[in-house]
């Protein structure tokens, strides 16, 4: 029988740092490139396949390049019922000229539709990188986008 305390003291404790390490690598590389995965694997003494297997499970790790500003719009049930969430998404599609899942040619904006931002009381809501914007109007969306990229 394996002694749990012993197990937890070595390899397992290194592995417990994986999610954090992946965030750091993503910050440095922009997304999880092969090289980023390789470096994380070396640092934590893990097989690259194990790192990759874990990274691809979670939606916040990007496996391909994304825009400088990632815009997430909630299309969940509460936001849909409250109205405005779809119109917000349509407006962003029109204004940025891209569909959800795409990135503008200049690499500035990516648009993503997501399932829940835990902002059901303040929709229409969108998140741009780590900032949540709530109770949005089109004018406010315009001024946010103008400020970020002058479009």
């Amino acid at each position, binding site marked *: 029988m394996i002694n749990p305390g012993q197990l937890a003291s070595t390899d397992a404790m290194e*592995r417990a740092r994986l999610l954090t390490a992946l965030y750091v690598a993503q910050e440095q590389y922009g997304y999880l490139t092969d090289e980023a995965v390789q470096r994380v694997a070396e640092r934590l003494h893990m097989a690259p396949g194990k790192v990759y297997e874990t990274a691809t499970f979670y939606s916040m790790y990007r496996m391909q390049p994304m825009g400088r500003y990632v815009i997430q719009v909630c299309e969940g049930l509460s936001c849909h019922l409250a109205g405005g969430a779809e119109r917000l998404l349509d407006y962003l599609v029109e204004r940025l000229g891209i569909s959800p899942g795409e990135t503008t040619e200049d690499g500035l904006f990516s648009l993503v539709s997501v399932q829940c931002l835990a902002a059901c009381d303040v929709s229409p809501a969108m998140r741009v990188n780590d900032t949540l914007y709530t109770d949005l109007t089109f004018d406010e969306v315009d001024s946010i986008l103008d400020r970020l990229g002058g479009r």
Partner: protein
Amino acid sequence: MFEPILLRRVDLPRSETIEVYLANGGYQALRQALAMSPDDLVAMVKRSKLRGRGGAGFPTGLKWSFMPRDAEHKYLAVNTDEGEPGTFKDRKLIEEDPHQVIEGAIIAAYAVGAEHAFVYIRGEFFLGVKRWNKAINDAYAHGFLGKDIMGSGFDLDMTVHRGAGAYICGEETAMLNSLEGRRGEPRIKPPYPAQVGYHQEPTLVHNVETLANVPHIVLNGDEWYRGVGTENSTGPKIFCVSGHVYRRGVYELPLGTPLSTIIHDYAGGIPGGKQLKAVIPGGASTPFVTAKNVDVPMDFESLAAIGSALGTGAIVVMDEDTCMVDVALRAARFFAHESCGKCTPCRVGGRRILDLLQRIVDGAGAPGDIERLYSLCDGIAGHTFCPMGDAMVAPIRSSLDLFADEYQRHLPGGCAAAH
């Protein structure tokens, strides 16, 4: 008017700071708790009849008593992976009053003898992560965390761990895997985390709101606590109201408050003078409540008695113009997207439900589709590793049961409301 207990500080300026918390009675409960024996604390929480606020409603004191006494290493995991659609209470608690949760966590850790508390927080809660980290640092600086807390000889460390976007990590064993740096797939139970948890060691897992109740029980006593709510659903509950109401938001009320009171007296009723059609009472994985049951008391037993569940207390209100097939489709889309893929009924069945509902809404539904949906529900519920299978089925099956006529009207021709 009910005087808030858990949310009583959130409207104060700088409510998230330790200064405001201390100036408003903060960490007094911890001082009292540390003067008690762990056994007395467990007994007190048992007597309070506090039940978990994360969805399952398991008795908190009983959970504490399951933690083995003699284990060398024990842990506490604070579940802040709030992602159940319609739920936004934990975000409020950790952004506006993190010390209340920290104090509850320290008391719980002391009661079960945990040496380290892991705060697992949803990766998207950027502000929450900042507030937690700041609050923990301040708690260390004031001697509420670390070695020999308030001279009691009790040591506890607390660290924040960000998830990375996976609803399933709100399931306690999936969360433990994620904390260990693995894919957030649920483990088979038993063994339960209280026996085999983080790195195989006994681990107490609690929802944020559950822990927020603990300081108040210690300070005011279990008898006082039992005076709030109903006989078997004691204490206050934070209800999150969204959907078709005038005033969406969080409302803290005693368990047992009628659903209609929350919708009309607190959330301002339904806009446009429209009639109520249906309510999701406890987050997307709880069966619908229809207008005829709108006076149901919002507590564990009363909701179970009408075939639904209290869940997280996330109330989603739908007016008479809502297409229930479309609602079912949206719920299915969420669950199919969030299935972790570990077991087949949830992974494949969820996808099949989504495809069928999509084709019904698009007007391509075929005779027999309703029976196919029922058959898929039967194939998923009760056949998965974790409660997600049952969660996924709840809104689908209850919409089929309660709104069969709407489904029939969609066959053929699709959804008039969606086009």
